[in-house]
């Protein structure tokens, strides 16, 4: 199957600063990929390279198997992080601009979305609130009926009801075969809507896999000992262990895979109890961006 988006070994430097380093990421048709990362991790730079707003220092980008050309944008809609709209123009004028630019612009869809977000077409965009501007960008993007959506924090500034609406729009598009790459600071959004998550840290990909797969493999193995916890140095070197926490009689290991096997290894130190605990995406994220600087192997897509 041809990837909707294929980023291969992307590196982007601004002077001495490396914003993105050796990033490889693919998004399949019908899939929603959530891009997570602390501020400055390289999410927006990745998007800029993807859209040709910045030139990659090295690496390649392919959209539906082809390098980016002007024609690509007939099928690709982008919502930037900070709304980039013409302050002096009304919503209606923005819509007219899009109608003239895009072959598949859907006016009926635009009207539907304007009603959903309860916006006034005649109002100048500069008079809208931050959330309403985000809504305008979303309306424009989703009225194009593109095959690919690139959304940089698409729910920023929106209230919880509209945030849910944005997720529903993405889900509906994916169910119709479109693919979505979106970034977010709200892990809960990625946890719901994405089947795939990529976590960036300092420009590097530290986690990439299916959300469900990660929840299957990423665990905490907790061992409780009757007396002070023993030295487990040999075990700590296991590459599957991301991080170890010790406090008194408890040792907690955050593992990326093989939790059963690691629990067995803990048994060798005869603890009082060993248990394996599930991790939500938020914990996986926090462990990944705080922990060691390594890439976890890809989880298989469902």
């Amino acid at each position, binding site marked *: 199957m041809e990837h909707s988006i294929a980023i291969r070994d992307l590196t982007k430097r601004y002077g001495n600063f490396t914003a993105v380093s050796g990033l490889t990421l693919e998004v399949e048709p019908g899939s929603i990929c959530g891009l997570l990362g602390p501020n400055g991790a390289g999410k927006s730079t990745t998007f800029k390279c993807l*859209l040709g*707003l910045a030139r990659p220092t090295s690496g390649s980008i392919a959209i539906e198997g082809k390098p980016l050309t002007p*024609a690509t944008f007939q099928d690709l809609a*982008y919502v*930037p992080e900070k709304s980039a709209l013409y302050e002096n*123009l009304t919503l209606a004028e923005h819509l007219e601009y899009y109608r*003239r630019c*895009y072959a598949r612009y859907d006016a009926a869809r635009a009207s539907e979305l304007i009603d959903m977000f309860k916006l006034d077409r005649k109002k100048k965009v500069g008079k809208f609130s931050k959330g309403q501007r985000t809504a305008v960008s979303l309306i424009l993007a989703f009225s194009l009926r593109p095959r690919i959506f690139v959304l940089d924090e698409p729910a920023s500034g929106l209230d919880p009801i509209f945030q849910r609406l944005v997720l529903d729009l993405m889900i509906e598009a994916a169910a119709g075969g479109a693919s979505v790459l979106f970034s977010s600071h709200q892990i809960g959004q990625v946890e719901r809507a994405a089947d795939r998550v990529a976590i960036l840290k300092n420009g590097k990909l530290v986690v990439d896999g299916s959300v469900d797969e990660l929840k299957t493999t990423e665990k905490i193995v907790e061992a409780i000992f009757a007396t002070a916890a023993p030295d487990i140095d040999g075990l700590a070197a296991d590459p599957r262990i991301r991080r170890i926490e010790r406090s008194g009689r408890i040792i907690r290991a955050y593992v990326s895979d093989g939790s059963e096997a690691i629990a067995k290894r803990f048994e060798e130190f005869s603890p009082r109890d060993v248990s394996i605990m599930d991790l939500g995406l938020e914990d996986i994220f926090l462990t990944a961006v705080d922990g060691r600087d390594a890439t976890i192997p890809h989880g298989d897509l469902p």
Partner: protein
Amino acid sequence: MNYIEFLRMRRNITWLAGVLAALALLSMISINVNAYKVHVGADIGGPTGVDVAALFGLALGITLIFATIVGGTLSRENETPEMARTKPFPREQIAFSFLLTDLAAILLAFVISNAFIFLIFLDFCWVVHVRASFHVGEEAGLLVTLGLGVAFMWYALVQAVSSGLRGRGGITIGLSWAYFTILLGLSHVTLFPVPLHDLIMALNLLNPLAYMNSLTTHGDTLSASIPNSIFTLDPWLRAAIVWLIGIAAGVVASYNWKRLEF
């Protein structure tokens, strides 16, 4: 593709027309108040009539100001780079469509300016009971070609400098007025040593004002004259040069705009 620029220019032209209409109204009120007792009663412009080109000068001045003011549009587009640059058209094509839209607006500004100037002139003739007749003088075509060329060259140079910047168009426009007038002024200073004077003359090659400055001669008010230039070149050649530099600057502007990264 150029819809945004079309809207922008429509707003600019509307503003220009509004300002000119207000000025025309004030002038006409002033003429009617001050000159209503004057009764000249004669014909104006002699047997051939007034050379329309004589009235073009003022309109060309207004057009020049308009052209420099709209020179920052590509840099304005860089404040919202995701808008124009993620549309399904080649980026140089987008830039060119902007430049052509602006050029059309500049020409329209000239037409509108003339309309108001003729209106005021005719009102004046009517108040003082003068019958005016017109003719198109031999120099009219050259004057308009040269004058609009100077306006376009100035416009395109501002675009070339500012299109690769993020929203610094306004400053570039302001500085261009200072730079071009000072540079022209320096060319008249005879005290400089030769190498410095040569350098100033060389820099003036890219100064639109240098191709059309009336500092040394003034035409008769009712017959057209081609303004002098610090370059002793045939006026048609001057006209050709300013248009060519304008077009070249337009190409540079679109290239700089396309190359800009975010």
